[in-house]
């Protein structure tokens, strides 16, 4: 491949622009900063129109099933799911992201949306707790939280700005542990990935994430008296053009079949 000198620098500048700063960045496969990029735009369609649900990453498996069941129970209904860290989703919504429903992993991130007058009331639909995820062929034995404070143990947690990071901080504080993580990922699924790859010895994730990962990680349960709980609120977004469908979806999430799916995943009822 002969590179002609005259084209070298312009070519390089183009390449620099193409894959330069903040280029193809996100490790979370579903969340990208900026509104409207991964969700369908809800237009004013007749009853039974499509709705877009922004949901926390930890709801990925359960909400995918719940959405499919909702579509089956309501012919003509279409649910598009946008998963990501709740804090990032809240930012997207306040920046104009086209959400009809928001299901977040913390009241704090829901408050961001209600404070911006984009949601009125929220209701808690599930409760989650934390668990330690370890790689399958672990070289370091982890039996509980105290093991994470040992010097050679690499721990991955979520970033402090993200709900699961807040929960991890509370977890360590409640148990009086000083743990310096090896990395603070922006998404709970990213923490899970680092554990699955064996790059860290342990990751603090939700119980539901360990269940969802199946054989890819080995979970170490945290006793209830050491654990922290997180409430998951859900709300209809005021700017939704499919208010009726959004309401129907929220009600479905609170109903028995959806609750059964959530509990099978590891959530507990509020």
């Amino acid at each position, binding site marked *: 491949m002969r590179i002609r000198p005259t084209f070298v620098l312009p070519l390089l500048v183009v390449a620099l622009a193409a894959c330069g700063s903040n*280029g*193809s960045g*996100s490790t979370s496969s579903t969340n990208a900063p900026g509104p409207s990029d991964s969700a369908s735009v809800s237009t004013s369609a007749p009853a039974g129109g499509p709705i877009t649900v922004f949901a926390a990453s930890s709801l990925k498996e359960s909400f995918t099933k719940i959405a499919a069941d909702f579509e089956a129970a309501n012919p003509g209904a279409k649910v598009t799911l946008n998963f990501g860290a709740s804090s990032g989703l809240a930012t997207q919504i306040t920046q104009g992201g086209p959400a009809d429903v928001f299901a977040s992993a913390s009241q704090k991130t829901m408050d961001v949306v209600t404070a911006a007058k984009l949601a009125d009331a929220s209701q808690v639909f599930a409760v989650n707790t934390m668990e330690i995820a370890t790689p399958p062929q672990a070289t370091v034995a982890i039996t509980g939280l105290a093991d994470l404070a040992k010097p050679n143990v690499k721990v991955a947690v979520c*970033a402090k700005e993200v709900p699961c990071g807040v929960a991890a901080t509370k977890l360590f504080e409640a148990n009086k542990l000083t743990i310096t993580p*090896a990395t603070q990922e922006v998404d709970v699924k990213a923490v899970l990935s680092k554990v699955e790859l064996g790059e860290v010895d342990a990751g603090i994730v939700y119980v539901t994430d360990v269940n969802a990962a199946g054989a890819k990680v080995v979970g170490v349960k945290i006793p209830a008296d050491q654990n922290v709980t997180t409430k998951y609120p859900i709300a209809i977004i005021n700017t939704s053009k499919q208010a009726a469908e959004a309401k129907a979806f929220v009600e479905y999430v609170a109903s028995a079949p959806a609750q059964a799916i959530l509990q099978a995943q590891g959530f507990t009822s509020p």
Partner: protein
Amino acid sequence: MVPALLALIFLGLPLLALLIKAPWDRLWQVLTSPTSLDALRLSLTTASAATLVAFIIGVPLAWLLARQEFVGRKFARALVTVPLVLPPVVGGIALLLAFGRRGIVGQYLDQWFGITLPFTTPGVVVAEAFVAMPFLIITVEGALRSLDGRFEDAAATLGASRLTIFRRVTLPLIAPSLIAGAVLTFARALGEFGATITFAGNLPGVTQTLPLAVYVGLEGDPAEAVALSLVLLAVSVTVLVVLRDKWLRTGASA
């Protein structure tokens, strides 16, 4: 005329929006917070180290590609350009699979020497060097190839050794391209995000460079992310200004 104007507006508007929407009232406060200073210091040191690595092993490779015929040269040249077109996060995954704790080379680094690269500052340098080094290699190779060989021949006929020729004839002749390549490499390393967050992780003070701080900042306080973005914008503009004259000339000075 109109399309050109549209292009200008298209490129300029987002940058203008960044300047307009920046939190000017608390800009100084945000930029001098420990997180921001850590990120800035880390970014500058790792980008510099990555550029140095690119120089040490990249320039010899550029020389080899430009001057030496060898089996597989075309393949080597293609290999060098791969990091340019590879999505950075893919680069990060590839680095993990090679140098991670369970990587094909990384596992031996860990077992035999106790060296782990992920989640360390050297890991950041590796990730940045991986994506940025091709810029230097290609620039220098281009410069070497378009160099008028007669100067070096003349020096040889005057009795200069190969090292002297390289030091006193070749190097000064390709110096402008060397500088341009180094600046591009530095800028690319500074702005690297995907490979860094995937391979080196994100830990303030250790691996959280400016682009990572911006991304994480978006999760908590978008205004803070905008403030940090201004710093990166300022660096990018500086790079462009420095390279301004180079665009209009060919890759070599001659």
